[in-house]
């Protein structure tokens, strides 16, 4: 199944003060795979995602997406190229309702990064609306469609954010702990949804602590510790690796 690389992170160094959050990190994500990144707290997992979406610029090294260098591009440009991200704490429009929350990313696809059309009513955007309604239905949020997003449970907020990312049909979806802080039932539901979209062939990067989630979804696993990838392989290989156990339990020293 090895095909072309969608995301290529090469020799990325990112320091905060004296701390090397990412230390000459190399990572290749292949098209159509679900790639899990695991590692202890503070290993640099979220920093890695922040570099990928343009929130942070690496000190040295480069990030290539879909054959193009995206190092130093702004978040909206990278998003328009096809990377979407689900955040660790849900980043949604708390003051708007669920329907509007999903409409906005759908409009981002239709309108691009800026369109001036202040007199085109929302009711004239039926095509965009249909797409949004389809995703809302897929995520089982239809019954709450006109509720304020900020008033929802954490599990629902996460599902809403996932819906917002999926409506953009990204080439690469980054998920930062999609099941953290969820009840068991919610976690299972999320796994089901992720399995369903796995079948669609969308490339995904998942950061996750819950090994059940990792083993039921991932094709590849990379282990991150102290800003570098210390091991990479199939979920089975990683489960048996001594190095990984050490990184999690003993504080790896390489």
């Amino acid at each position, binding site marked *: 199944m090895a095909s072309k690389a969608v995301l290529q992170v090469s020799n990325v160094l990112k320091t905060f003060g004296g701390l090397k959050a990412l230390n000459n990190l190399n990572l290749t994500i292949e098209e159509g795979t679900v790639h899990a990144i695991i590692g202890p707290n503070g290993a640099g997992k979220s920093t890695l995602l922040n570099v990928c979406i343009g929130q942070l610029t690496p000190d040295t090294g480069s990030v290539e997406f879909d054959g193009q260098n995206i190092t130093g591009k702004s978040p909206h440009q990278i998003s328009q190229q096809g990377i979407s991200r689900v955040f660790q704490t849900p980043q949604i429009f708390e*003051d708007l309702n669920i329907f509007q929350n999903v409409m906005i990313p759908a409009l981002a696809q239709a309108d691009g990064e800026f369109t*001036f059309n202040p*007199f085109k*009513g929302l009711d004239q955007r039926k095509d965009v609306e249909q797409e949004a309604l389809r995703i809302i239905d897929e995520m089982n949020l239809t019954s709450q469609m006109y509720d304020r997003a900020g008033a929802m449970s954490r599990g629902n907020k996460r599902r809403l954010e996932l819906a917002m990312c999926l409506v953009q049909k990204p080439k690469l979806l980054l998920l930062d702990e999609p099941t953290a802080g969820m009840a068991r039932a919610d976690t299972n539901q999320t796994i089901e949804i992720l399995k369903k979209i796995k079948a669609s062939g969308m490339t995904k990067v998942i950061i996750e602590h819950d090994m059940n989630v990792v083993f039921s979804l991932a094709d590849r696993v990379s282990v991150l510790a102290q800003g570098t990838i210390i091991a990479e392989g199939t979920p089975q290989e990683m489960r048996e690796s001594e190095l990984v156990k050490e990184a999690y339990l003993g504080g790896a020293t390489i």
Partner: protein
Amino acid sequence: MAIFSAVVLSMPIWMSPFGAAYPDILQKFVIFGVFAIGYNILFGLTGYLSFGHAAFLGVGSYTAVWSFKLLSMNIIPAILLSVLMSGIFAVAMGYIALRRSGIYFSILTLAFAQMCYNLAYSVLTPITNGETGLQLAKSDPRIIDRLFSEAGEGLPSTTLFGIETSGYSGFYISAVIMILAFYVSLKIFNSSFGLKLKAIKSNQNRMRYLGFNTKPYLLTAFVISGMYAGLAGGLLAATDPLAGAERMQWTASGEVILMTILGGVGTLFGPLLGVIIIKYFENIFSAVNQVDLHSFYALLPDWLEDIMVAVSSMFVGEGWHLTLGLLFMFVVAFLPKGVLQGVEIGYKKISSYFSKSPTKSTKKADTGANHGE
């Protein structure tokens, strides 16, 4: 929309019981209505609190008066030019101020407006005529008018193709423009563009990660609201061809913020309601004097009448600011969405109270709607 237009145009009738049915104050209601509607497009939709919108009001007024002096006494070119000119100023100011958000944005806009104000008093005196204010003169060229007719005796007055733009006709012209301005803002509120602005207010970072370049959106909203302010400034000059720098002072920017918050920020009718309340206080309440109070309390026994007059006089006349301040504090503390929220709550209570007798409830609903407009 039809109801709204009818309510605005019939203001001279239903305002008369409140003692506010004279053209001067009616003009102020609708002109500052335009100002507040425009301000609400920026502050209500994007949440960016500008302290500099009075600058655009001033720019609009100066431009309009210069148009009267140089081109024509017709208000059409004056208003178009004042909208254009304030739009140019808004691009310049927005381009710089929108590099920051929150309090820094507010400070930058405040600084810009105060700069305009001080320049109008000092260096730019040849353009603004400093403290005296820019006025019409007999010797003005008025190029376009000269093509059609000779200069008449005395100062000409502002017109719309022959219709005088002061007094009641001035009110109706301004009211029609205000209704159009309101219609445009309604369109913006209901468009996908408006939804994006609301989303920027809610979570600007998320907008960026979804692929929107938020800068041009904010700048567009800023320029649109600046042009609304320019339009209001142009109308002020059209109804009274005189422009002074005090229109640009930061207190004038503060006033429009008060109006928007008092009425209900982010709502369609709220800012208009705020304008009516504040302009009413400014013009009517401030004119109430001791004699009026004595006649108001005339039915009470003398000793009580004196006490009531003494207490009330603190709140009227010169003391109208105190009443307004108390009202503002009350609204911000208890009705965070403004007076409009209060009207809604009251309307709901009344309609549920009268739900058994439908005739009465519709009657109450009518008056409620009137206040809402």
